[in-house]
């Protein structure tokens, strides 16, 4: 056992000491922050009108002119000129738009707005809204209905705000944040299982091609070496996640202090999520999923002489997880309690991703329990299978491995 600790220590330290590891710890949160800033910047650019925009209305029908009302930063003015003249002024000034309502106006057909630059989205929405209102008001007038009454009746503004019933009292929930957290956890687990699993595989191949394997397994059992490597690399993964979590919280706090409304909203949405519970499940499913898959990766590594030969084995191994991943980000979160989602979240090969997506939707406790128990059984099983292939594989050179060959190795005696 002491020797396994030594192996874990070496696998862990050689990776953590690498410069690339330290850089990754700081670069990834920075990238996420930068990405957030860029998205916010772009959203701001296209979402808000910051300078005064003038809309020249050329109305051939006469039904709309004069009925537009100004809103902050958007000024409407009716021009009694031809379209060509109006277009000219828009050509000169990029903050001037020309809205042309033709004589043969059809309320179902689009009408044209001319400008030097693309009109911002809020501007066109504002025009559409006002024109619809005007068209409706005109129609009411034609039918001799009092528009004052109509306006009074239409003064409603309904939106739906979800409130979750819990034992401790009603609380506000944010479905969007829940889905977001679930899916990003699933993506993170999916990616990290492959990233760290591949590291295990590469480590095994390295030992095999370096031929150090024979020296090492004359001192320890192949199983101890495999286990030590898997645990060591897994701890590297957990260290990385730990560092990222701490850094993100710090970064969010710092960003929160500059009291930007967007981030505050985001934070308050985050707070509606059972953070500890999700984090605990994340650690569990990452660890067990990683153990399950990395054992298989180790077996693949032991069976080949170089990384290029791994392709034929990698595909069938990665398929179940890839399949679940694609389903998860596309449909599972829309139907978190469908039979497909339930089964995927219970089968060990797919559970790490599928269950993370389901978690925010409060799946029954017994399903979580069964899923977790099966995860443990699953990784014990794959570790057993992998170790039997591994112990033979690491000493085999120049033999083209196939699945048939691997199953033979499995049944070899010591």
């Amino acid at each position, binding site marked *: 056992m002491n020797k396994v600790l030594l*192996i874990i220590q070496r696998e862990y330290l050689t990776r953590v000491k690498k410069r690339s590891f330290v850089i990754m710890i700081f670069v990834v949160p920075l990238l996420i922050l930068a990405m957030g800033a860029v998205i916010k910047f772009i959203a701001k650019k296209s979402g808000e009108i910051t300078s005064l925009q003038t809309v020249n209305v050329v109305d051939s029908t006469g039904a709309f002119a004069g009925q537009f009302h100004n809103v902050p930063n958007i000024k409407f003015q009716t021009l009694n000129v031809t379209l060509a003249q109006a277009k000219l002024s828009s050509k000169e000034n990029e903050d001037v738009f020309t809205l042309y309502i033709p004589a043969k106006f059809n309320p179902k057909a689009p009408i044209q707005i001319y400008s030097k630059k693309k009109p911002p989205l809020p501007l066109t929405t504002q025009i559409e809204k006002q024109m619809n209102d005007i068209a409706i008001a005109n129609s009411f007038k034609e039918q001799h209905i009092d528009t004052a009454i109509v306006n009074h009746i239409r003064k409603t503004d309904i939106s739906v705000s979800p409130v979750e019933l819990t034992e401790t009292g009603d609380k506000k929930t944010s479905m969007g944040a829940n889905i977001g957290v679930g899916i990003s956890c699933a993506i993170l687990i999916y990616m990290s299982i492959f990233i760290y699993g591949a590291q295990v595989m590469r480590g095994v191949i390295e030992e095999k*091609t370096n031929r150090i394997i024979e020296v090492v397994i*004359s*001192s320890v059992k192949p199983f101890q070496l495999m286990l030590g490597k898997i645990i060591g690399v897994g701890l590297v993964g957990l260290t990385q996640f730990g560092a990222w979590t701490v850094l993100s919280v710090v970064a969010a706090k710092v960003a929160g202090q500059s009291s930007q409304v967007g981030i505050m909203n985001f934070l308050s949405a985050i707070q509606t999520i059972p953070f500890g519970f999700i984090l605990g499940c994340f650690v569990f499913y990452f660890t067990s999923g990683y153990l399950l898959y990395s054992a298989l990766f180790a077996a693949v590594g032991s069976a080949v002489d170089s990384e290029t030969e791994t392709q034929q084995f990698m595909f069938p191994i990665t398929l179940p997880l890839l399949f679940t991943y694609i389903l998860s980000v596309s449909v599972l979160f829309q139907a978190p309690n469908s039979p497909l989602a339930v089964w995927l979240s219970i089968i060990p090969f797919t559970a790490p991703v599928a269950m993370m997506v389901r978690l925010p939707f409060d799946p029954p406790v017994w399903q979580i329990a069964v899923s977790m128990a099966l995860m443990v059984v699953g990784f014990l099983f794959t570790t057993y299978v992998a170790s039997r292939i591994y112990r033979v594989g690491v000493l085999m050179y120049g033999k083209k491995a196939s699945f048939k060959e691997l199953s033979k190795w499995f049944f070899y*005696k010591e």
Partner: protein
Amino acid sequence: MLSIRHIVKQYAGHTALNDVSLEVESGKIFGLLGPNGAGKTSLIRIINQITAPDSGEVYFNGERLNQSHIERIGYLPEERGLYKKMEIGEQIVYLARLKGLSRHEATKRIKYWFEKLQIENWWHKKVEELSKGMQQKAQFVATVLHEPELLILDEPFSGFDPVNAEVIKDEILELNRKGATILFSTHRMESVEELCDSIALINKSQKILDGKVKAIRKSYRNDTYLVEYAGEQISFNGNEPFEQLAELGEDDGAYMVKLKLKPGADSNSVLQYFIPRVRVNMLQEVIPTMHEIFIEKVNQIG
């Protein structure tokens, strides 16, 4: 020291070792010989407990081989390697700790060995920065650091230049003098005669010969001599106490012949025949080298 009894090892489709038995005496240098693919590595892996035999037993100092013996064996595999990206010093400490040494003890001993081999400044070098021969040296240190009672060396001199091969050979002999038993696997026969006390010859998964080197060579004596003489060339008529096997030619007035004694004759009778006729430059008994015995044995069986 090491007793190997009736080992059988089969891999899918072929037998690697077929009922092989060996005795390695304590404190001696034992040579395990055989062509490539004969089963040497399979046997060594069994002694190192990397694999287990299908049947048969191995005894280490009278005890059935078990995990506790791992720390008393040092193994230098033929295909050797180290972690490329790891510093040499750290790496040897790691390997030594896997063999049960403490970090402190390992560090102390590595310093001693590095000084001895004049590689003190290598501690922080990475393996990829070293030449192949230098890596071998480092690996040798890693093999002997835990002062094993049994040292298993698979082709220890391959990859060394003659100077360093000599250095390593001296170190091996010194370890042997200090009491380590050495099991030495090779297919290069010339190194066997000067180093090994005993040998075993393995071919096609079977042991075909074993014993002390001197005794084996003696048993292959066949009364053959080489004679070089100067003077007039003698033509033999069949009445000599020997038969001529071959005439090896003339060089600057000296003739060389290969003879086989007739029954009852000895080297003196050869001299008595030659001395009155010519001047004898040299008389040498032809004892087959291990190499020749090896080839002969392998071909006989083959």
